[in-house]
Structure formats: C-alpha cells, structure tokens
C-alpha cells in the first residue's frame, strides 16, 4: 500500500482481473509507481517555476516522448503504448498530481487528438498522422470552441468549403488547449453553413499548413504552463484526405471524442485534488497552534475526512467509467458523472486545502494556491458542469422506468 494520504484506496485488494471489476491490479500499481517516479523527478523541481513563468516545459516533453506518454492508448502498430483505460487514467492522474498543466497537455493530446484518428481514421490517415503524434513530435489540439460557440457547439461558424480535391477552411478558434505548441490540430468546421448540424466535419490540419496561424497565448488564472491560444484559419487549404470520417460525421465524431476527453479531464482533476489533499494532510500534522498540531483538533480532521471520502469516490467513478469503456459499451453518462464529480471535488478539495494552510496557503511559497487556481477551470473546459448534468439527465430520463 502507498503511505497514507497518497492515493491508493485502502482495502482494494491486489487481484489480477480487470473486466468490469474495476479494482486496480498489480499492473496498475506498477504503472502508478513508474509515472509517479517520473513526475516527481522530472516535473517536481520545476512545477512551480513553469506556472509562474507560464512556460511550457519542452525539456520534460523531450523525456516523455520515448516513454510513450504521447501515445498512451494508441495501438502499438502506430507507436502507441496500447494501455488499458485505467492505466491511462492513472498516468494522467500522476502527472497532474505534480503539474496539472502538463497533465492537461497530455490528456488533451491523447484523448481528443490521437484518439479520434485511431477511432475514425482510415488506414492511410492513421499511417500518415499518428506516428508523429504518438512519438510526441507533433502535439495535438482539438479546436471546437469559438467566440459564439462554447456550450452550444451548433453555433460553430468556422467553415470548410469544397474546392476541387481540397477544402478551404476559414474561421477562428479560441481557448485552444495546447494551441501554442500544437503540431497537429483537429478543427471542427461546417461544410454547409445552411445546415450546420448535418454538415459538420473534423479536419486534420498540420501547423505548417499555409493559412494556419497561432494567436497570442492567453494569460490565464491557472494551468499557466499550458499555452492556450486562439487559432486563425485564413484560406487554409487541406486535401480532402484530411477530413476525418465522411462529410457530416462531425457531430458524431465530436461527441464520441468528448466522452473520452472528459474521462481524461476527470483523471486530471483527480490528480489535482490528490496533490492538494496530501499537502493538507502533511501541513495539518506539522502546523502547531495552541501547542498542538492542528490535526488534533476537530474541524481540520473533519475536513480531511470529507476530502478523503470525496477523492476516493471520485476515483472509483473514473475507474468505473474506464471499465465500461474498455468493455466496449457506451460510457458517455459514466464519463460525464466522473468529470462532473472529479472537477467539483477538485475545486472543493483545493479550496479546503488553502483554508487548512491558513495564511501560508495564500502565499506562492506553498503549492496549494497553484492547485486552487488550476482547479477552477476543470469545472469549465471539456464541457462545463452544466453540460455534464445535461448529459447525465438525458441518460437518466431515457431509461425505462
């Protein structure tokens, strides 16, 4: 078992099977250890600095490439690690536990960049685009959001007009995670503006394509080491082979992709919560007031108990969604539940962690203020909590009573 307060749910036995029984087995334990050791050694020393300086740590990305962090679930044939979903969630969680911004980069790249191509791409598309992505040479970004299209994906105005054997894309995407460093972007655009829902498509656009420019990097409250930016497409011409699926498949691909995306974000939020929780436990044992550690009074242990329970529950929701996904069944509602619960847990836990640290928690000398700032956006991106509730409610109401 891990030392107390470090995440491995107590009481989960070390058993081998991994079907719908989502109990972690020895493989998951070893994956957790391997990623944790990597994260603490390579990201730990610089996590604070890259947040302060809003710097994307290329030097760590270099080290991640040969370890297949950029192809977590991609098939081995295309350079991926072909890991199961729980292992993938664990990897994202452990990286995010040290640097949520880097965890964000990885989960977005894997779940909404690599994953759609694996699921919906043709053999040629996979062979053409995947190896550079799984090898980490081209970091992926998924571009859906626009100024007038946030939760309302139907409001997308970016259009892709057929011209001979090509499509010409025009539009602006905002708040693109990994935007500043992406090598391959998946652009959600409509081919027939009169009929957006039926004509949406996902286009693979590589950075060096003429007409593709990266806008200024956003100056954000949290996740600052992740270069979020706008992307401008002006007469950007791509061959029709860059369209994923058939024209009109956009909504279908988008929705399916987002399911995986939100599962990854759930894991990321979980890592954040875990980090804040561990710091809170440690601090409450060290900090003395009234000649006793604050962990010996009543209020703080109550907080810690709530935090521990919520984190465990959040983790189980993630693993359950992973198990359903790996069993090949629709997992949209389960993923939405995981994302909703993990993100609200992250904001609650990080908020409490700052509170427990008292004045010191508000200082940049401690990490909890960074966790606090990082946590908020997990309730917003990849589908706001309100959207997650919509998804869950739809599933609930669709069930036969």
């Amino acid at each position, binding site marked *: *078992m*891990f*030392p107390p307060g470090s995440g491995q749910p107590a009481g989960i036995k070390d058993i081998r099977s991994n079907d719908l029984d989502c109990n972690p087995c*020895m*493989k998951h*334990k*070893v*994956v957790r*250890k*391997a*990623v944790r*050791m*990597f994260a603490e*050694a390579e990201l730990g020393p610089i996590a604070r600095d890259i947040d302060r300086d809003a710097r994307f740590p290329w030097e760590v990305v270099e*080290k991640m490439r*040969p*370890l*297949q*962090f950029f*192809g*977590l679930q991609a098939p*081995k044939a295309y350079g*991926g*690690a*072909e*890991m*199961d979903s729980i*292992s993938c969630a664990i*990897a994202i969680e452990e990286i995010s536990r040290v640097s949520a911004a880097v965890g964000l980069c990885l989960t977005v790249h894997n779940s909404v960049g690599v994953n759609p191509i694996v699921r919906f791409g043709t053999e040629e598309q996979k062979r053409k685009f995947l190896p550079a992505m799984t090898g980490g040479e081209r970091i992926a970004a998924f571009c859906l959001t626009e100024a007038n299209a946030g939760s309302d994906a139907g409001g997308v105005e970016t259009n892709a007009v057929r011209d001979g054997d090509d499509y010409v894309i025009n539009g602006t995407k905002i708040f693109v995670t990994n935007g500043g460093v992406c090598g391959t972007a998946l652009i959600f655009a409509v081919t027939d503006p009169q009929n957006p829902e039926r004509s949406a498509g996902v286009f693979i656009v590589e950075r060096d394509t003429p007409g593709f420019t990266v806008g200024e990097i956003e100056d954000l409250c949290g996740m600052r080491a992740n270069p979020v930016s706008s992307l401008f497409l002006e007469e950007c011409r791509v061959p029709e082979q860059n369209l994923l699926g058939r024209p009109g498949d956009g909504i279908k691909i988008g929705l399916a992709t987002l399911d995986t995306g939100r599962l990854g974000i759930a894991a990321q939020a979980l890592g954040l919560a875990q980090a804040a929780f561990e710091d809170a436990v440690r601090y409450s044992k060290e900090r003395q007031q009234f000649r006793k550690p604050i962990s010996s009074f009543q209020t703080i242990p109550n907080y810690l108990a709530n935090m521990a329970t919520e984190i465990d529950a959040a983790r189980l929701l993630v693993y359950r969604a992973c198990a359903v996904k790996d069993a090949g069944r629709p997992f949209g509602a389960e993923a939405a539940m995981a994302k909703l619960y993990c993100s609200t847990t992250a904001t609650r836990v990080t908020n409490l962690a700052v509170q427990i640290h008292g004045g010191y928690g508000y200082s940049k000398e401690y990490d909890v203020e960074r966790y606090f700032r990082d946590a908020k956006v997990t309730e917003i991106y990849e589908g706001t909590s309100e959207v997650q509730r919509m998804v869950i409610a739809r599933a609930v109401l669709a069930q036969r009573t």
Partner: protein
Amino acid sequence: MLKMVVCMKQVPMASELPWDAATGTLLRNLAEGMINPACRSALEAALRIKAAEGGEITAITMGPPMAEEVLHEAIALGADRGVLLTDRKMAGADTGVTSYTLARAIEKVCPEFDLILCGFATIDSETAQVGPQLTEELAIPGVAYVDEIEVCGRTIRMQRRSDNFLETLEMDLPGLITVTTGVHAPHHVPLGGLQAAFDKADILSLAAEELGLDPERIGVKGSATRILNVYSPTAAKKNLVLTGAPKRIVEQLFERFDDKLGGAIGKDLKTGKRS
C-alpha cells in the same frame, strides 16, 4: 550473443521509514517498493550489452510476492523474462543464504549463463556482500564495483576505482560483476513496455522446494548471523532543535558551536562583541 542474468532487489521506497516503536521493528510492508537503484544500473549495463552484442536477459529477484513488480519493470525496460523466488521459508535470510538461494536458482533456470550482473549494494541493507558471495557459490570469477564494461568475445574488460586506484581488469566468461551507479545511470520505465510486460507475463515463480534447497540452509534457520536489536539512532537521537527568528537562531548556533565550527573551517569565529 550473451546469456545474462541480472539479480535485482525490491527495496522500500520510503525516505521516512515507518518504524514501530512498540515492537522495535521496521514496518517494511507499509512502504511501497522500488527497484534498488544499483540493481537498475546493473540492468542498464546488461541492456547496453544486449544492444551492442545481442543476448538474452533473465531478471531474477528473491522476495515476497510483491517483488514480482520488479520483474515486470525489468521486462518493460528490455529484459526477456523474469524469475521470482518467493517462499515464506526464505524470509529472514542473510547474505550468505541469499547468495546460496540465488545460485541454485540460476543453476536451474539459466545454467549456461555467460555473465551475471548485480548492483554493487542495496540502499536498505547496504552490505554489498551478495555479489561476491554469489561468485563463490557458483565458483566463477567476479569483480565488484565495476564502472565500465567492454565485451570482447568471451572476455570482458572492466574499469573500476578501488581505493584510490583506477584499475583496468579482464576476466573470461562465465563470470559475475557488480555494477556502480555512476556510468550506467538508469532511465525511466517506458509505458508501452509495461503494458507489454504484463501482457506477456513471462515470469516464473519458484519456491524453496522447487529449487531443491536444503531447508536447514535457508531463511532465518540457515542464517549465520542474528539480529539482537535494531534501533533508530535518529529516533533516539537527542538533537538540538532551534526555532524562531533567523537572527536569534544563528546567534544560538554560534553561542554553542562557535568552537566546533571554527575548528572545522580553520578560522576563529569567537567574538567578544555583540552587535
């Protein structure tokens, strides 16, 4: 083409040791395990030889069932198969017994080995004895604390530092070396490798009986040494704790230790004046 055996040990990961003051024992099972760093270097050395000369690597470990993790990690890094020696009767072994057990296992699973590689010492027991004793058990030549290795056919050439001497040595295979951590710095475990390692699962688990071990010679029974008492000098240590304002702390430090500090640095740090 070299048949290599790498001996690895799983050691506790914790830097803060869980210590049971009541029983005076180390709560080893509370700490997560990791591959002993020097054993990682030994594996790294074997991997480099495999990459250059071709070969096959068998990773072997003796420990509780959890030690199997080490073998999966070794396979993920490039070892070909793993052997776990696990048995309640093997618990409590000293290095003499450990080397006896490892030797019999190697004779069973890889009798035609060319080179055995061990880490020079573990970070928990720190004896550095198993390597040399394994050499004796198998009656092969061996060299400890090897920094660099070069394979020349059936001979290996090694460089090491031994008590202020930089030595270049040669040995004909089969033989054994213990590897230091400097040159063969280990790298991280690749995730795809881990997945494959668990899918493949080419791991053999052996108990004392299957190895044909003499029960009198293994475990606590077979150990020549006995631990009378273990104490934590850190727990028992009456150290001086200073808190408060930095200026006051530093003042106190000099008040008590200006002689000691001055002596060590060769300067007079006493001052009659107070600022």
